[in-house]
């Protein structure tokens, strides 16, 4: 990894007309999803504290290396020229990128999309291993390849999904799974997650249900999501967002595992018919795979225990219990 060596003496400060800055050149731009207004206000009140860094691009134009947002704010304020720090033109792109990354991380934390942009730009100069060890900690990520794999695709996702990530509606882990899908599926699922507000693990669960049902039934992801039963949940005004999420998740689980969920319903129906008292519970083997059932009893003294045992004994020949155990 090359070190940035920019002796102080080499840095020239110069007044530059904004019309000479190339706003279209985003080679070093890392910012994403920002609101320019607070910065505009602050500059409008106290002026520009930290001059942007630029590099000469051609005889008349300069490339913005650090401070794109600041320059943009100044432009919006109607300023025509500003003082900039001008890098010597022999400074290469790699050095400029590092300068911008370290300039940013010194005073703020990148959002997930910006982390992704930084990783992708670094990929032009470094191996994945080098990025993991030398840069992820600076981006406030664990120095592990899985982190790199999670964040790398985020900046390539559609704007709507990126916005949902920044708003916390879609987790980074869900986003990586979305990035592996085709565009139409991604959009459909992205919309679903924005509506439902599920936790990270439930997002992944729903994503798997939908894509696996689609694979099994030879349907598109959109077809699955637009099923009548799901869209009617969206429209149901009696349900709050959490309830909508749970209803859709349960429905998808039933579609994904029809026989298992049927068996669970049957088991719960029989349990209800047993009318167990609150201190007694009966559990089926996980997924009904094994052949051991578990009963737990809650009691506080011998008398209480005796009552529970009598209750159990009276259930031995109950049809519902026989149904549960002997199927």
């Amino acid at each position: 990894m090359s070190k940035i060596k920019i002796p102080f003496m080499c840095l020239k400060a110069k007044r530059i007309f904004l019309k000479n800055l190339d706003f279209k050149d985003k080679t070093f731009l890392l910012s994403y999803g920002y609101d320019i207004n607070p910065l505009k206000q602050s500059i409008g009140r106290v002026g520009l504290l930290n001059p942007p860094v630029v590099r000469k691009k051609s005889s008349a134009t300069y490339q913005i290396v650090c401070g794109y947002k600041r320059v943009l704010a100044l432009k919006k304020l109607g300023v025509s020229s500003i003082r900039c720090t001008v890098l010597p033109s022999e400074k290469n792109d790699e050095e400029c990128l590092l300068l911008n990354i370290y300039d940013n991380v010194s005073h703020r934390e990148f959002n997930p999309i910006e982390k992704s942009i930084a990783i992708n730009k670094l990929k032009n100069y470094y191996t994945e291993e080098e990025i993991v060890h030398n840069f992820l900690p600076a981006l406030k990520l664990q120095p592990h390849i899985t982190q790199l794999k999670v964040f790398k695709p985020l900046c390539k996702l559609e704007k709507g999904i990126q916005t949902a990530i920044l708003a916390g509606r879609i987790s980074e882990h869900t986003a990586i799974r979305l990035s592996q899908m085709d565009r139409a599926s991604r959009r459909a699922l992205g919309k679903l997650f924005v509506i439902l507000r599920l936790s990270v693990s439930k997002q992944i669960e729903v994503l798997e249900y939908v894509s696996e049902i689609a694979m099994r039934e030879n349907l598109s992801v959109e077809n699955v999501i637009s099923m009548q039963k799901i869209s009617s949940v969206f429209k149901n005004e009696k349900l709050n967002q959490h309830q909508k999420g749970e209803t859709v998740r349960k429905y998808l689980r039933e579609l994904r595992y029809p026989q298992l969920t049927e068996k669970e319903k049957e088991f719960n129906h029989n349990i209800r018919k047993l009318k167990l008292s609150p201190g007694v519970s009966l559990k089926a083997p996980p997924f009904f795979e094994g052949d051991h059932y578990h009963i737990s009893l809650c009691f506080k003294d011998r008398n209480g225990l005796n009552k529970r045992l009598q209750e159990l004994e009276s259930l031995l020949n109950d049809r519902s219990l026989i149904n549960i155990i002997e199927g």
Partner: protein
Amino acid sequence: MERYRPKKILVEKSIRDLPLTQTVIKRLKGIPVDYINRVKPLPVERAQDSWLNSQKTLLLCKNKGRFFEPCPGTKNYLCCLYKILNVATNCHLNCTYCILQAYLNNPFMVLYTNTNEMFKELDEVLSQHPKTVYRIGTGEYTDSLVLDHLTSFTRLIVPYFASRANAFLELKTKTDIIENLEGLKHKGKTIVSWSLNAEPVIRNEEKSACSLNDRVMAAYQCQKWGYKLGFHFDPLIYYPGWESDYKKVLEKLFRTIETSSICWISLGCFRFIPKLKPIIKKRYPESGILYQEFIRGLDGKMRYFKPIRIEMYAKMVEWIKSYDSKIFIYLCMESEEVWKKSLGVAPLSNWDLKKWLDDQCRP
């Protein structure tokens, strides 16, 4: 079926002069050979990345560990106490569901050529417990016959088992590479077995293996050479319409093969270790085998929900028995309950099941 022909051969220097090494190199005349000291195992993920390409390299090397090992079995399900003879690893047939994909830390096609040491080890094991019956298979880490056109290994191993009183060999395959089995003195000690499946499953999930017809015809040929035959419906794959497709397989099988030469038919529903799922998804995105109702079994493997398994087994048993009620059928890695509900009986233990299968081998 395209027979395996590597693009490159790697030979460990220590075994370069062994007869099997020489045989293989001669048969692959024209293929570049590199002599190396040894190949380092790769982390499983790295081996997976280069899986399909690396299979084109054949590695001839020494098995430095043991050739002979017990079948790993699986907790909480009945196991027949089979034994494995590890003579090669990997397989270019690349069935979508193959467990080797999640398992091997070496993506090359590997053949162990120090067969002398293998026979020595076998001699020791078999003579240590002369009263114990050993059913031994070579098809656990590869297909038993997939390299036989290059190795003629069966010409060594079949006569060897013919000479041993307490051991039976099972060659499990999805190929028709049987020419070396002709004319061997097998004395009924070798069972040649085919893994069979419904035609759509063969077309989609076992693309590089032999067609159903070729498998059955190869079995027919072996029957004519006096071999006992085994058939494994493993993995049974559930999909809408599976019944009629599997029935057609049985029709074809029993139209061609005499039931009296069938030693056993095994049934085993598709199951997989969880880490195989992302591998299959990535490597075979069009495969639909992962999307039925799987639950985590007592051994941590994903299996079809129990009623589905019972339904599949019970129907298969009924259809098979309709051809000949005496055919011996067993379930691979299933619980006592599933045995009882699909076959009406269950072995009391692994040893009991072993005995049932041992008895089937005897003349």
